[in-house]
């Protein structure tokens, strides 16, 4: 299993993603944003960071880099793509995922552990997460407030595209457990076809107990399982 981890100027979780893939016993290759090929990778991770300095809007410039053309083609052919944090922002900007991510309601950069509720366990990104198991993952972002218009939100709900919600330790989404003001406490979504997903929390930074949580493994293991099934 070979992951491609994209690398933009000012990506800063690219090495974390490589480490996470290796911790799971797989290999990962870093691909520079100017590359126009995914070099035969089985799955793509768009990592966190501040690509292109977050200029204009988070992810707005990265989406036009040559590697993103290759990612769009890979996704159109059914390839698995996971965007984490800034990677989620890039995939939304690229139109590969619905909605947008805006400034946190508090205006503060939030760097903490959160609880996540998984709404579907039948996807390539969630199949290995035990039922009723909350995830504990770190967040580190200033612009993670998920927004979609009421009409789009209704569609996301109807199509089951909301994958993760922020919640409290009992699994209840609430204002207090919503770190950034996201509509309906949305932490992550999936595209309609089910092969592209993004989330603001970092599964890549939670792959062993020493890091405070190993819950991120379930997300990455789901992706591995999906590729192996193909």
């Amino acid at each position, binding site marked *: 299993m070979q992951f491609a981890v994209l690398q933009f100027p000012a990506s800063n979780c690219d090495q974390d993603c490589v480490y996470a893939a290796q911790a799971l016993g797989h290999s990962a290759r870093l691909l520079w944003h100017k590359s126009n090929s995914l070099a035969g990778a089985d799955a793509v991770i768009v990592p966190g960071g501040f690509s292109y300095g977050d200029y204009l809007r988070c992810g707005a410039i990265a989406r036009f880099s040559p590697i993103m053309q290759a990612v769009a083609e890979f996704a159109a052919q059914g390839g698995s793509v996971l965007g984490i944090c800034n990677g989620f922002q890039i995939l939304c900007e690229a139109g590969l995922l619905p909605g*947008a991510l805006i*400034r946190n309601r508090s205006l503060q950069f939030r760097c903490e552990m959160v609880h996540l509720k998984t709404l579907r366990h039948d996807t390539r990104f969630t199949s290995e997460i035990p039922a009723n198991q909350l995830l504990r993952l770190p967040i580190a972002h200033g612009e993670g407030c998920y927004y979609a218009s009421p009409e789009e939100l209704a569609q996301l709900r109807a199509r089951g595209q909301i994958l993760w919600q922020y919640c409290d330790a009992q699994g209840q989404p609430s204002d207090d457990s919503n770190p950034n003001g996201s509509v309906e406490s949305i932490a992550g979504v999936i595209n309609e076809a089910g092969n592209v997903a993004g989330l603001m929390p970092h599964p890549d930074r939670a792959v062993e107990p020493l890091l405070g949580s190993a819950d991120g493994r379930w997300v990455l293991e789901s992706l591995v399982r999906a590729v192996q099934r193909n």
Partner: protein
Amino acid sequence: MKAKIHITPKKAVLDPQGKAVQNALAHLGHTNITAVHVGKYLELELSPESEPKAALESLHDACRRFLTNPVIEDYQLVIE
């Protein structure tokens, strides 16, 4: 010739920055302000030989595809 683009958050989108500025204005005694919306202003310098109508059309395309995110932002574009 210049293109001037004002980008503002859509009315329905949470604008915590505007709210924070409004609160600060209230602290300064400006209590008659009912809402603040913080946006962006872009000024693009166009080559003198640009044809205004064609430039306007292509810049609207650039606004929709790149300079703004239509999910969260509105814009106004003028060429002067």
